[in-house]
């Protein structure tokens, strides 16, 4: 059992609200410590008010205890690492697209509204899109409209 194998096992744990992306590719698993047979996994929240936090802790724990059979697993959530959308992996970005969510653009540590304004449409790839609202059906999503294929779509907003 190594940190790498733990992360591989956790690839099977998906975000309950975006079931195409794993917790690892989402970048929220920030630390794995192994001490003999004890494993401690640290998660960091995507958004402070994300209702999936408790569920994620349970899913991670269940995966390691029940599937892998590790005896003692502790999962904790804290803010020691500040999650940003730049922590989403390349695989993760593809997984978001697969769910119809435009992946977040990289940002230089600060945000301006125009970071959201020319989000490419996840359906047709057009950049002829407009931002309707920086707030969407979940805290992590924004609402957009594509003037090319005339469809509304959601984006994963950069933080």
């Amino acid at each position, binding site marked *: 059992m190594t940190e790498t194998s733990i992360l591989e096992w956790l690839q099977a744990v998906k975000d309950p609200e975006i079931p195409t992306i794993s917790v690892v590719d989402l970048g929220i698993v920030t630390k794995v410590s192994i001490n003999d047979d004890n494993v401690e996994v640290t998660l960091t929240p995507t958004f*402070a008010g994300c209702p999936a936090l408790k569920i994620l802790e349970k899913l991670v724990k269940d995966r390691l205890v029940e599937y892998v059979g590790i005896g003692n697993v502790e999962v904790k959530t*804290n803010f020691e690492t500040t999650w*940003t959308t730049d922590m989403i992996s390349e695989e993760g970005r593809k997984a978001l697209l697969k769910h119809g969510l435009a992946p977040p653009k990289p940002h230089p540590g600060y945000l301006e509204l125009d970071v959201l304004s020319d989000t490419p449409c996840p359906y047709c790839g057009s950049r002829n899109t407009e931002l309707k609202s*920086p707030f*969407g059906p979940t805290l992590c999503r924004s609402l957009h409209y594509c003037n090319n294929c005339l469809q509304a779509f959601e984006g994963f907003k950069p*933080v």
Partner: protein
Amino acid sequence: MDFFNEKHVEAAKDLLYKMADDQLIIGHRNSEWTGLGPLLEEDIAFSSMAQDKIGQSEHLYNLLHELGEADADTVAFTRNANQFHCSQLVELPIGEYDFSLMRHFLFDMAEAVRFESLTHSGYEGLANIARKFKGEIKYHTMHAHAWVKQLANGNDEGKARMQSSLNEIWPFALGIFEPGQHEDTLKEAGIFEGEESLKGKWLKEVTQLLNACNLQIPTDSKPVFGGRTGNHTPHLQPLLDEMCEVYSIDPSADW
């Protein structure tokens, strides 16, 4: 928190309580727009911001729990109005949309300044949280800026309404920065830079946008203080009664 002595812990608690209570109560007020927003997108925006604020309040209550206070649910749902440390600004009823929007602008700009400052706090748990909240609140202030500008620079009615709300809210907004009794301790411990200093930064920021919208800041307003020491408007207790209704019926319920 071994770098705190007892005096520092008391001072940190005082600071955390007022921030957490502000977040919880404004979150509750924002949530009252769910299903009632003037546009679908605004309904969603206020609901999302409510969720952010309430989520943030939980993490601040968790820090209080680490400092020896009861757990988040107990603290949030079992106190009466006189035990709350929120500013009176956040407890005022939502009123019409212009009122809620102006309050949202003034309050969220104050939070942006506060959490930016706290990213440099010597209290590590609070600094970590502040770094995260800062990124989330950025969306709130962008939202507030966009709509205040749009309505104040729109037709005469929009401008008049925004000005009238600003006049009404301004003294309450100044009340956010009511100095606490532990300010010197907080400064000395490197936890917090103090309300007066924050107020200066906030004034600079909000004046910029209000000027750009040709809105006049009331010049003879006295700040409305009292919220931080448990003196509230008659609007807070009914809000708490409603917010705590489910919890009061069965505090042991698991949901």
